């Protein structure tokens, strides 16, 4: 008997493996509904008659473009404005004041890793315009970069277009009218992000499982609401790449209820601030401490190798 899922169970298993391999994300068995709804709309858009036929082509032909689109659709998370406001408090009350004091001027670069449809970045941009925050920032300019897999969501982040429902979730009426305008196109009920919110904001595609080399250097990296979905291997890899993009004494901000789960020699948790880590200024050694064997089985072997060189 078939359940709610019209996709063949073997395909579902194959999609779970593909998502784990490409994105490092573990889909639970409860993701069946998500797979169905998200992939059905992708299948329609790509011109397939059924979801099964799209998945069949994916696994028989194995085109990487389709694989990336499928995985991006599967790992895309729902978000809204001012999600997890406690971690924004951490940003504005701890990380930014410290960096502003240390730098005194110039710019502060912030990376939103896994920015989805962009609400996190625009929420920060809205709060950065509050009078009290402007006074604190002084001459310092905040530049923000959002990265995510190429997806519909990332496109929407770039255009800054949000639905009637999205602009009413997490966003106050005051912030809405100060920072958005209704789309006047006939039949549209969308709202458009005002130009001033897009100043110093860029969105970039990130290739699945790509390294951090192309991401740049940042004073603050925000990686919120995602760490729990990663397998351990993928989690360690992501945290290492993010650490590499952080400048010394820069901050990594996770969700307010999240932690790294492993210790990293270059990252120290900031006391009293859940989810906040500071990058130390050591040598670039980002292995989780005591978790990664170095291949040596004894001191004898180490000595021998040293003698040999």
């Amino acid at each position, binding site marked *: 008997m078939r359940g709610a899922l019209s996709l063949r169970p073997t395909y579902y298993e194959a999609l779970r493996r593909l998502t784990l391999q490409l994105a490092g994300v573990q889909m639970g068995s409860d993701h069946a509904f998500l797979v169905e709804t998200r992939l059905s709309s992708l299948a329609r858009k790509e011109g397939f008659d059924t979801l099964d036929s799209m998945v069949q082509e994916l696994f028989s032909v194995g085109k990487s473009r389709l694989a990336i689109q499928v995985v991006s659709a599967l790992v895309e998370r729902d978000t809204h404005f001012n999600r997890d406001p406690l971690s924004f408090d951490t940003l504005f009350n701890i990380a930014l004041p410290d960096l502003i004091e240390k730098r005194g001027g110039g710019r502060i670069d912030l990376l939103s890793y896994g920015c989805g449809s962009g609400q996190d970045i625009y929420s920060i941009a809205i709060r950065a315009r509050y009078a009290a925050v402007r006074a604190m920032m002084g001459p310092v300019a905040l530049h923000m970069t959002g990265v995510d897999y190429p997806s519909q969501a990332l496109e929407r982040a770039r255009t800054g277009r949000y639905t009637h429902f999205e602009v*009413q979730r*997490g966003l106050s*009426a005051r912030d809405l*009218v100060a920072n958005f305008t209704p789309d006047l196109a006939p039949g549209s009920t969308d709202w458009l992000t005002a130009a001033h919110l897009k100043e110093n904001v860029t969105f970039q595609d990130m290739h699945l499982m790509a390294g951090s080399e192309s991401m740049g250097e940042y004073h603050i990296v925000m990686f919120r609401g995602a760490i729990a979905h990663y397998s351990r291997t993928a989690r360690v890899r992501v945290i290492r790449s993010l650490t590499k993009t952080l400048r010394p004494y820069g901050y990594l901000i996770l969700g307010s209820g999240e932690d790294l789960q492993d210790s990293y020699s270059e990252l120290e948790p900031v006391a009293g601030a859940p989810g906040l880590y500071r990058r130390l200024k050591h040598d670039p050694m980002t292995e989780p401490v005591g978790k990664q064997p170095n291949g040596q089985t004894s001191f004898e072997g180490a000595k021998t190798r040293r003698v040999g060189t």
Partner: protein
Amino acid sequence: MSRRCLIVDQSAMVRRVAARIIRELGFEVIEARTGQDALDTCAGLTPEAIMLDWKTPDMGGAEFIAKLRVMMQQNGTPMPTILFCTGERSVEQIVLALKAGADEYIMKPFDSDIIGSKFALAGLLDGENLACAVL
């Protein structure tokens, strides 16, 4: 004593849908069809929150707030939290409502996430309801 929210809307269906959502947020719900009905209700027992359509059959939102303010001052009662819930979606209309003294503004159509989020933004939720709200 349970917390009370007054819903003011000409449409019985809007009142019914909104009432179900607002009860879930921990409020006792009372309903009114017109601005005057709502004012009469407030004269008896002032609710903590009022969610009302900008255009009730007998008066506009600004007039309602002005009359309510006078009444509250006479009684020495604090103003309830006011959320407008209306189909009008222009920036001018929202600014007008905020200037008149609204705490939040909901554009129809709404769903439970929107109402929960706006109640949270207006400072009406606490504890588990606040934790569950989209904020």
